[in-house]
């Protein structure tokens, strides 16, 4: 309920006749009776235009009927009356009763408005100049809903928005623009004012809308979903509005509260990517989706993760070897029994007496079981090794970077836990390839358990299904290995098993931790080495099994994990395009 305008103002005002304009700024019109009491009065407290609905609030005394006129014709309107004790108190003795009113004019046409007020059979029309354009410019954010349905023009809703802090705001929703009239989209917030977001309004598929609304709105298409990026840091719990301008068909407003951004960044990224409704229906435009909308906000959120490195604990099993040639870093995440299988092979390889073996537990949830297993395998084999642990999940890149800080040997071997050697002597064979100063990194032949090729070097791969992305291809994957044992140069190597000089690793800054969870950081590192003119070699002499996790099948995007891979792919592609790392397509 609006506050009553100043009673002084009311008391001093005495208008008995003549036409006057009703506006929200004007004082009340009041007519006194002969005995001095107020007989008739009317006042407009506020006017609001929202989604082609005009809402008038005010009070009237003495009038038993109020009608809305437009261009001298009555227009349909809903008039609600309610008590206004403040009015009753200000005008004692008047027949105030239910003085308050709220008048709602749906589908309000443009024109000259007035209120026709009738008392005891006598009518009088007050002009009510409404500047619709001016009203449009002033959204009432607290009056907005997250859903509108104007079956003449526009139906839609905001489903969810994500506050990515410095990464701005991502708004997911849908609209059905029944007459294809949408011209622009603006974003309003209390603190930031208006921003035109037409260019960052991105249509996404919504199969559910087609399925559920086709009968009511035959115009609905699959691409009725949208995601909007607002590139501005916003205060949590502020209100915001979206204005869809459909020209002559009017403006439509949706609004919501800005969520807090208290979630951990990775969870936030996961929530955002999980929210994309039907990614499999928009493979052709996913690069653009990341490039225009999602990529930068995710990068901003992820950069918060890079925050201070956790304090690591190092547990030494056995005594550290007097001399070491190679430090091996094996990150452990989730499944830890691979340690058992790897150690069954490592301990039987004499080279491991000169190896600095470091397991990095990148998963605080398995710390206890891993330490127990580590103690058990040390007891069984007596092969010394270290376990580095900390209370975080840093991802593949972060885990390796942290582990590498403890590496003491001149050569560094990055190894996945699901890589199992076939023969002893493989570490020395790999190291031999680095005798050549022009070689920056070397990897072995990796095979699936059945002997077919898992990795014989990687090459850039552009998929016609996902235009825009540069992926990593595995030439020869799944095939029979028919090559010789002679090392050969390759465009890229996997980090599932990759050896390089420890000094090089540190000087290129290790793995780029901006890739989330683990993808592309290996090819990124390869391209950093190539940027320095170093060669990458595949040495197929040493052969190891790689029981590659089968989670990265790009043919079937159904989960957030696949979209995360695509985010990483977008980021990788951008770094190549910006010249930050070498271009893998340029033959070395």
């Amino acid at each position, binding site marked *: 309920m609006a506050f009553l305008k100043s009673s002084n103002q009311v008391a001093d005002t005495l208008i008995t006749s003549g036409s006057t304009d009703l506006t929200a700024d004007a004082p009340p019109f009041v007519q006194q009776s002969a005995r001095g009491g107020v007989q008739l009065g009317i006042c407009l407290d506020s006017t609001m235009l929202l989604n082609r609905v005009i809402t008038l609030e005010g009070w009237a005394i003495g009038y038993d009927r109020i009608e809305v006129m437009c261009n001298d014709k009555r227009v349909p309107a809903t008039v609600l009356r309610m008590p206004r004790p403040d009015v009753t108190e200000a005008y004692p003795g008047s027949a105030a009763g239910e003085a308050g009113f709220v008048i709602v004019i749906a589908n309000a046409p443009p024109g000259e408005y007035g209120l026709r007020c009738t008392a005891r059979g006598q009518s009088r029309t007050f002009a009510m100049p409404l500047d619709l354009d001016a009203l449009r410019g002033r959204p009432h954010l607290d009056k907005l809903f997250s859903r509108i349905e104007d079956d003449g023009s526009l139906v839609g809703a905001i489903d969810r928005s994500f506050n990515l802090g410095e990464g701005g705001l991502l708004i997911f929703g849908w609209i059905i623009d029944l007459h294809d009239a949408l011209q622009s989209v603006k974003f309003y917030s209390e603190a930031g004012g208006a921003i035109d977001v037409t260019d960052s309004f991105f249509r996404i598929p919504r199969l559910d809308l087609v399925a559920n609304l086709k009968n009511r709105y035959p115009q609905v298409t699959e691409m009725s979903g949208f995601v909007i990026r607002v590139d501005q840091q916003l205060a949590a719990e502020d209100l915001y509005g979206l204005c869809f301008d459909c020209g002559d068909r009017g403006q439509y407003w949706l609004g919501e509260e800005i969520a807090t951004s208290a979630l951990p960044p990775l969870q936030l990224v996961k929530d955002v990517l999980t929210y994309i409704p039907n990614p499999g229906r928009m493979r052709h435009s996913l690069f653009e989706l990341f490039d225009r909308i999602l990529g930068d906000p995710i990068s901003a959120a992820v950069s918060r993760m890079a925050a201070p490195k956790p304090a690591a604990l190092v547990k030494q099993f056995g005594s550290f070897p007097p001399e070491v040639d190679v430090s091996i870093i094996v990150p452990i995440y989730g499944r830890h029994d691979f340690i058992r299988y790897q150690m069954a*092979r490592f301990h039987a390889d004499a080279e491991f007496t000169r190896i600095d073996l470091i397991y990095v537990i990148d998963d605080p949830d398995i710390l206890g079981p891993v330490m127990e297993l580590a103690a058990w395998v040390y007891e*069984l084999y007596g092969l010394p090794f270290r376990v580095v642990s900390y209370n975080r999940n840093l991802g593949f890149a972060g885990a390796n970077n942290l582990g590498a800080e403890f590496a003491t040997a001149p050569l560094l071997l990055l190894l996945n836990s699901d890589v199992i050697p076939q023969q002893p002597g493989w570490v020395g064979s790999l190291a031999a390839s680095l005798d050549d100063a022009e070689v920056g990194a070397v990897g072995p032949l990796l095979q699936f*358990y059945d002997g077919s090729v898992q990795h014989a070097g990687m090459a850039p791969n552009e998929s016609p299904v996902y235009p825009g992305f540069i992926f990593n291809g595995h030439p020869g994957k799944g095939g029979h290995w028919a090559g010789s044992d002679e090392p050969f140069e390759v465009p890229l190597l996997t980090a599932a098993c990759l050896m390089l000089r420890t000094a090089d690793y540190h000087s290129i800054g290790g793995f780029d931790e901006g890739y989330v969870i683990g993808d592309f950081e290996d090819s990124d590192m390869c391209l950093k080495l190539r940027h320095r003119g170093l060669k990458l070699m595949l040495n197929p002499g040493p052969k190891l099994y790689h029981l590659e996790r089968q989670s990265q099948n790009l043919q079937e995007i159904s989960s957030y994990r696949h979209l995360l891979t695509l985010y990483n792919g977008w980021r990788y592609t951008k770094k190549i395009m910006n010249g930050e790392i070498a271009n893998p397509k340029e033959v070395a």
Partner: protein
Amino acid sequence: MRVAIFSHGHPKFNKGGAEIAAYSLFEAINAVPGHDAWFIARASSNMLHLGTPVAALSAREYLIGGDADVLHLSSTIELGPKSDFARMLRSIDPDVIHFHHYVNLGVEMIHAARRMCPRAKIVVTLHEFIGICSNHGQMVKTNGELCYRASPRECHNCFPHVTMENFFLREDYVKSFFAKVDVFVSPSTFLKARYVAWGLPAEKIALIENGIEEGKRLPPRFLPEGQNRSRFAYFGQINKFKGVDIILEAFVNLPKKARKQVSLDIYGSSLENQDQEFRDKVHGLLNLADKRALGMIRYHGAYERAEMENLMSEIDWVVMGSRWWENSPMVIQEAFKAGRPVICPNIGGMAEKVQPGRGGLNFLARDSVSLQNVVTSITEGAVDYDALVEQIPTYLSQAECAQSHLQLYS
């Protein structure tokens, strides 16, 4: 020579064929002057003391803990140089460490034994196919079909909840320990061939038949005038793998004339431990047999090994029905010792030990009609029983078996 024999169970508590064979070897070696054997049998933790996986039953017999399941075969006790396991082994100070099995014990024990006693020879006896097959080591698929060759893909088809990669890891892991074994012992060429196909070097697998207690060959059962050689008996565990139901089906469905002549005695235990469906099937067949010819089939339940000679003296044939390959079934050796021909399926270790005319007769594995035909041919006089008895091979005594092992050890 000092020999430490590990067994996956003690026959005092588990009367399996492999446990008995391991214990017999222990006894037989101790009976040879100048040789000493120790017997170390795995036991479940409820049979052990608090705070140690080792429990000495006597100066020569120990229990050892561990719960290595069939899928992982991984030991659950401490095996380091200061462990109770290591102290026990070092106190025995063996020249030979003989694992008569590795299930329950865990394959890592092979490495620990090698590490604690670097000069000792490591011997492993292969029984069924547990290193190869997770389905109780039977090499029978979970859908019931016979398996001819295991692979991670095929094993995954049997156990869809276990990935191919995990089956690969199991194989790689077991092989990493088998690589530390000096010599394997297989009681049959069939079993050896399966392990060779799986990847063990043939030259590392010696063939030694299971030894059994010495005994005399019995004369053929006294045959009253007008009777024929139609008394059959089954000895052994009663479960699906052993195929007692196949034997029952064959006898129940014999022609009426034959039913009046034959008898079948079932000596076996653990029917009560089988699932309801199998128990119902066996009971159903026994009831049906009684309806068709009262007394034709008699179910006796469990028997003691010492009774075997008496029981065998009353019958003409030993019959087997196993659905799986078998390795070298003890019952065949027992039958040979007693001079009784064996009728068994024509696969695996059974077909190796018994061939038509040499040791008995075969029928098509898993086919009760085929067995029925063999029985009918006997009742109709088409089989020369005396000639078969003449051709029954000899058996290996425990003492001979111990001698073969001592030769292998040195």
